[in-house]
């Protein structure tokens, strides 16, 4: 009996590996203390995978010099990361150290595949007090040892094209949602007189599932909603959530300040490119500055995300979730000490300054904030948003499913808006469907 099971397990693992597009870097086998080698899966933070490789190689070289540990680096695009992690978790064959999107932290914590950050591990990274509390809150579920360490912090802000603002005679970015819609309407126009609109108020990657999930969370919060209630039950289709999602989709469907073409867009960089090219005046984005720099684009401004109620405080004043990436150690790693050392290196104050400056993200350790690299307007605004206007995405095991289900619902609503009209009833039906699927999955 036992034999069959083991054979079965091996076969299933093999088939999962084959299905999972193979090519997973297996954890370095060598247990030699002398020439240790570990594998590191990094998410895509820079303008391109190549850019990431450059930035990280420099940092990893310093690590190898200090410790003698070699690191096999693989940079993985966001669209593949979740599946890659899932495959690694299922097969037990993964890297030693890996990045995760911080919104997945609790979902992945529940799999038990990652090393808890406590004891020796926590000591190696210098304790949790070094870290910003908003960032540390994303490391795992409350009341349990987290299974990830915050690495890069991000927050949504409103970025706008100052030239287009000037042309339209708008001198200040909008602060409330109504002002935002008005501003966007003024900026949506036909500039070359061919009867077709070629400049839009706002651009977003409406075809991306994660984008839909993020804005449902933010817009829902501003209306007083939540994705889950206190008992962890999904509340995707409450009035507040419907209002929030309807308001977001209406930008394309009702107000027509967002190009229908955006419904096919899955990559945030394309929305930023629209802003740079003058095809759109505003974007909501976590980190477009690296793209601006790469294109030598300087006519941009940054402002806090607009609020439904400008005077709101607390939940209704949420402008972003505490976004970012964390780093975890795989439980099956043969070289845990080396893995801890790598995490310690990546969260070291100097490396934090180097990495987050290169990626124009924010450090997760408090000391790094004093560096002059983070004294510019965009970084300061993100810092303030994270401190006062951000909450972690729901810290529940079903967060991953929620992102997929709600995000897909929003994506489909945009598709509907691009090819027809979307009513409030449509939004309600889509969110109720997502809710039903969520309940059936539990």
């Amino acid at each position: 009996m036992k034999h069959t099971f083991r054979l079965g397990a091996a076969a299933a693992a093999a088939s999962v590996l084959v299905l999972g597009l193979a090519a997973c870097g297996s954890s370095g086998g060598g247990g030699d203390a002398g020439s240790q080698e570990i594998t590191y899966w990094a998410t895509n933070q820079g303008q391109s995978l190549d850019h990431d490789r450059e930035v990280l190689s420099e940092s990893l070289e310093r690590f190898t010099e200090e410790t003698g540990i070699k690191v096999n680096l693989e940079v993985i695009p966001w669209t593949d990361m979740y599946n890659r992690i899932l495959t690694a978790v299922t097969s037990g064959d993964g890297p030693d150290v890996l990045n995760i999107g911080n919104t997945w932290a609790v979902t992945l914590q529940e799999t038990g595949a990652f090393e808890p950050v406590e004891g020796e591990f926590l000591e190696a990274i210098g304790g949790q007090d070094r870290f910003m509390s908003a960032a540390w809150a994303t490391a795992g579920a409350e009341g349990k040892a987290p299974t990830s360490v915050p690495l890069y912090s991000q927050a949504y802000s409103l970025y706008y094209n100052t030239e287009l603002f000037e042309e339209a005679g708008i001198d200040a970015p909008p602060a409330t949602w109504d002002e935002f819609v008005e501003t966007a309407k003024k900026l949506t126009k036909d500039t070359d007189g061919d009867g077709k609109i070629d400049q839009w108020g706002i651009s977003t990657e409406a075809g991306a599932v994660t984008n839909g999930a993020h804005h449902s969370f933010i817009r829902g919060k501003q209306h007083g909603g939540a994705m889950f209630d206190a008992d962890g039950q999904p509340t995707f289709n409450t009035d507040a959530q419907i209002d929030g999602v309807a308001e977001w989709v209406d930008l394309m469907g009702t107000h027509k300040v967002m190009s229908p073409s955006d419904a096919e867009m899955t990559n945030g960089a394309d929305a930023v490119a629209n802003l740079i090219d003058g095809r759109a005046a505003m974007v909501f984005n976590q980190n477009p500055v690296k793209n601006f720099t790469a294109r030598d684009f300087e006519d941009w401004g940054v402002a806090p995300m607009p609020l439904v109620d400008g005077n709101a405080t607390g939940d209704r004043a949420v402008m972003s979730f505490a976004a970012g990436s964390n780093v975890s150690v795989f439980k099956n790693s043969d070289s845990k000490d080396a893995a801890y050392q790598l995490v310690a290196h990546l969260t070291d104050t100097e490396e934090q300054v180097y990495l987050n400056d290169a990626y124009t993200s924010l450090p997760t350790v408090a000391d790094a904030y004093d560096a002059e690299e983070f004294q510019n307007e965009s970084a300061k605004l993100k810092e303030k948003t994270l401190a006062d206007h951000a909450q972690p995405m729901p810290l529940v095991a079903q967060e991953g499913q929620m992102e997929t289900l709600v995000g897909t619902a929003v994506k489909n609503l945009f598709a509907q808006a691009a090819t027809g009209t979307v009513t409030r009833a449509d939004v309600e039906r889509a969110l109720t469907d997502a809710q039903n699927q969520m309940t059936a999955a539990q």
Partner: protein
Amino acid sequence: MAPKNTVPGTIPAPADADGVGLAPASSASGPAAEALRPAAGGGGTHTAPGTGTPDDAGSPAPRGRARKAPDAQAIRRRTPRGKAESRLAYYLVTPAGLMELLIHIIPMALGIWIAFTALNQLNLTNWLNAPFVGLQNFVNGLNPESTIGQSFFSALGRTAVYTVIVVGGSWILGMAGAVFLSSKVRGRTFLRTLFLVPYALPTYVGTIAWAFMFNQRDGAVNQLLVDVFGLFGGERPFWLLGENSLTAMIVVNIWTLWPFAFLMLLAALQNVPGDVYEAASLDGASLWSQFMHITLPMVRPANGVLVLVMGLWTFNQFNIPFVLFGPSSPAEAMLVTPLIYQNSFGSWNFGLGGAMSVLLLLAMLVATAFYVRLVLPKGAQHD
């Protein structure tokens, strides 16, 4: 990939008879000579290489004949040489059998077992011990009243229609191309190569190119239809969203699939002797009636397998929607396999995904069994 039933026989007939005879032997009855003849022609789909006349190349394993094979085998068994050869056959088939077990049978059995468990992220690392929930996944997910059940059954219906259109379209194109190129037209070697390009390209490469072409704002399709031909009143339609997405996917799938039909039918057509057509045209048969009364019946056995294989591939289509639309297909173009993927990997609900897979497997088994019984034996009579 392609059915391996086209190898002309090099092994003597008795070996073939033994190969077929891997199925349980029934008692010998009837004269040996009579039993042998059909068995020799029964080069099976999954058993031994065919040994028949050249006419048999490209023909599927006719069930009717295979059923008679054990008679021959029982007789062969009596001779010592037959026994040794039968043992050799078992040895030869062992590695393939083991791999088949490892790669297909065991994972499939595990998949069926997963359908009865509540496998999710909580017990994923220890998935052999996922809690057993009996029929809960089937009841929960496949209840036609529930959201998930509705999406499953409508995807099932949509996939059936999709399969009929894609296989039909590919067959018509493939047949037209094969008939055209089996006559002696100029540049037929070039055209033959050209027609096979979509088949030679990896599906992903071809589909990514199509996804670019179907892009609403900058794609080549809209540039051609809207900017050049001025269709749709100057409004650029969406091809990868909403109602058109199913059409777009059908176009891409036919584009990838038809060269296979073309290749198979061309091979089959080349086995139709030319003098039959000559005789027919002397008798005054029109080209159309030559096609209907000679070509179609002659390629019928090849057709039977071709349509079955293309149908199975298309019904299980995953690559094309995944590359065209990303992890979640538009509701209007949601096929069964992407839906199962979405439930398993998007929602981490592997039990439900497993339950859907089991139902899909059952549906395919029933459909295939019917098809094999109804279509393939008839093909044998025309051999």
